[in-house]
């Protein structure tokens, strides 16, 4: 039985690592496998991946995992230190901090997902269009990008939130608006390296429209660098969102957003330290996870780096 599984897995490995793939799917899977083996060797990167996966699992199963309801108040048990009943203690309303952290994972994941879905996409469109067309289109778009790149991000995000009003949606919008320029630069640089390539000319001679070439041939080649950069930036996004929450400009109470939880715990920090310490620790672990993962991905997907 074991021998049989061994030969089968050896067969799979051979199929994946072959020099002469028989189909496009096999070639793709083979490349992914090679990337994974390189990634797997970096133990810190694997740790990062596990942290990010844990965040996703905790967010998905929050109602099952959380021992209490995140809003359930118990004024007789307010500001209790960590104990068997409340592993991470309770806050000023007697709410279970662990349960709030678990539900807060959903908010963190939502912020990360929304920013990751919008800012790199905007940068990708601007960068590929500028790089592909060149000329005055390039000049105008890149001047615009350079100007936006020179702005202080956090302060502008603050001003945007001030204008739009506090709230988690507006915090996401403000972060996305201030973080697209680096993606546009990366996408343009990648586009410039391929736009004179033979396969692009071949596609053009076959009568493919500019839109088709950009969408079908250029954008897929920019994805790897953008994914690395996005992953590395997610830690910054989490910290910025938490900072906005801490200043009272992000998620509003009673939402269990981690930054806002630190802000409410701040007034008790000298006596009941756990109220502020626990959410900060959660932010630290999750953003460290994204940083480790991004660092590892860079080594695999973008070997030019070092």
């Amino acid at each position, binding site marked *: 039985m074991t021998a049989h599984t061994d030969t089968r897995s050896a067969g799979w490995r051979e199929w994946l690592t072959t020099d002469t793939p028989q189909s496009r799917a096999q070639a793709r899977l083979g490349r992914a496998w090679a990337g994974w083996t390189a990634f797997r060797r970096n133990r*810190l990167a694997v740790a990062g991946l596990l942290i990010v996966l844990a965040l996703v699992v905790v967010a998905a199963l929050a109602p099952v995992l959380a021992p209490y309801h995140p809003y359930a108040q118990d004024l007789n048990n307010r500001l209790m230190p960590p104990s068997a009943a409340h592993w991470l203690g309770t806050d000023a309303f007697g709410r279970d901090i662990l349960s709030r952290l678990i539900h807060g994972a959903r908010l963190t994941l939502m912020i990360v997902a929304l920013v990751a879905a919008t800012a790199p996409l905007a940068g990708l469109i601007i960068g590929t269009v500028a790089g592909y067309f060149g000329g005055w289109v390039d000049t105008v778009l890149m*001047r615009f990008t*350079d*100007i*936006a790149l*020179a*702005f*202080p*991000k*956090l*302060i*502008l995000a*603050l*001003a*945007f*939130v*001030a*204008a*739009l*009003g506090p709230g988690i949606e507006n915090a996401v919008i403000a972060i996305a608006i201030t973080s697209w320029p680096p993606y546009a630069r990366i996408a343009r640089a990648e586009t410039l390296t391929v736009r004179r390539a033979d396969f692009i000319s071949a596609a053009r001679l076959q009568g493919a429209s500019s839109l088709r070439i950009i969408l079908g041939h250029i954008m897929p080649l920019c994805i790897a660098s953008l994914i690395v950069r996005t992953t590395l930036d997610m*830690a*910054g996004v989490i*910290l910025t969102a*938490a*900072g906005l929450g*801490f*200043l*009272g*400009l992000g998620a509003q109470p009673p939402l269990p957003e981690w*930054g806002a939880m*630190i802000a409410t715990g*701040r007034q008790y*920090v*000298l006596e009941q*330290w756990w109220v*502020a*310490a626990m*959410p*900060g620790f959660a*932010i*630290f672990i999750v*953003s*460290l996870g*994204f*940083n*480790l993962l991004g*660092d590892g991905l860079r080594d695999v997907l973008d070997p030019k780096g*070092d």
Partner: protein
Amino acid sequence: MPTLKRGLTLLVTVAATLLGLLLVTFLIGRVVPIDPVLSALGDRASAESYAQMRTQLGLDLPLWQQFLRYVGDVLQGDLGTSVLTSRPVLEDVLRVFPATLELATVAVVLGALLGVPAGVFAATHRGRWPDHAIRLLGLIGHSVPIFWLGLMALLLFYARLDWVPGPGRVDVFYEGMVDPVTGIVTVDALLAGETEIFWNAVQHLVLPSAILGLYSVAYIARMTRGFMLDQLRQEYITTARVKGLSETRVVWGHALRNIAVPLITVIALSYASLLEGSVLTETVFAWPGLGLYITNSLLSADMNAVLGGTLVVGAVFIALNLLSDLLYRLLDPRAR
């Protein structure tokens, strides 16, 4: 002649960037759901005085004319009046800015003093445990929420260990005892010959500037490592080693001198990001600088103050970027 042309291009770029910044703050000011007429007159104003004030503020003009008017006002140093302090915003900003400058300057000095040797050390031990340790420390430094670290540091070093004084720039009973000549408390105390207040201010500076500086250590170390690795591959390094120079002299005397120029630009860049990053640190440490001013104004919807503060931080940020660019061109003959 090419130098002149390049200088002109640079000037145009900077002007365009500043104009872009003005456009952003102008547009933010327009989308705010606060009626500037009502906030100037109060909500019991009659229809006539409302219309009169509207004309006076230029709100009946087309948007582009309003923008030109705004640019003109800013160029004359008019950033509007703060609702909260009922003083001109520029006056407020100039009053609080030295505190931020003091904090960020000490932080960047600490960052460079720690970051440069760490980067050099990582480069000379490439691939071995000191390199990995410094890389991991850098990643950790980039993952900690700075406001939380500040709170925890206050809890540990102030409340529990009592090694440093609490929030603020000086102890309460020293407050206002020295004349604000420069606005930088440590300098003012020395100018007034008050060594006791000077030491008190230094003690207050230690924790916030260390927390803020930690942020730039990772970046400076990472860049130093990269520059250093490039240098150590060069032939002149081999020559120096063959000549029999000690490794210390090769690394610190030869290689480090050659990366000084790009390092200066890196440090200037991280200085700019520290000025911005001080917003959260100032809030935690009740440090009365520009960051605290902006956040306090935000919470009371004082838009003139917020946008004025944003504009000043943005302009300083852009100026520092420009300065690092200029320094690079000036100091590195290859860039000319």
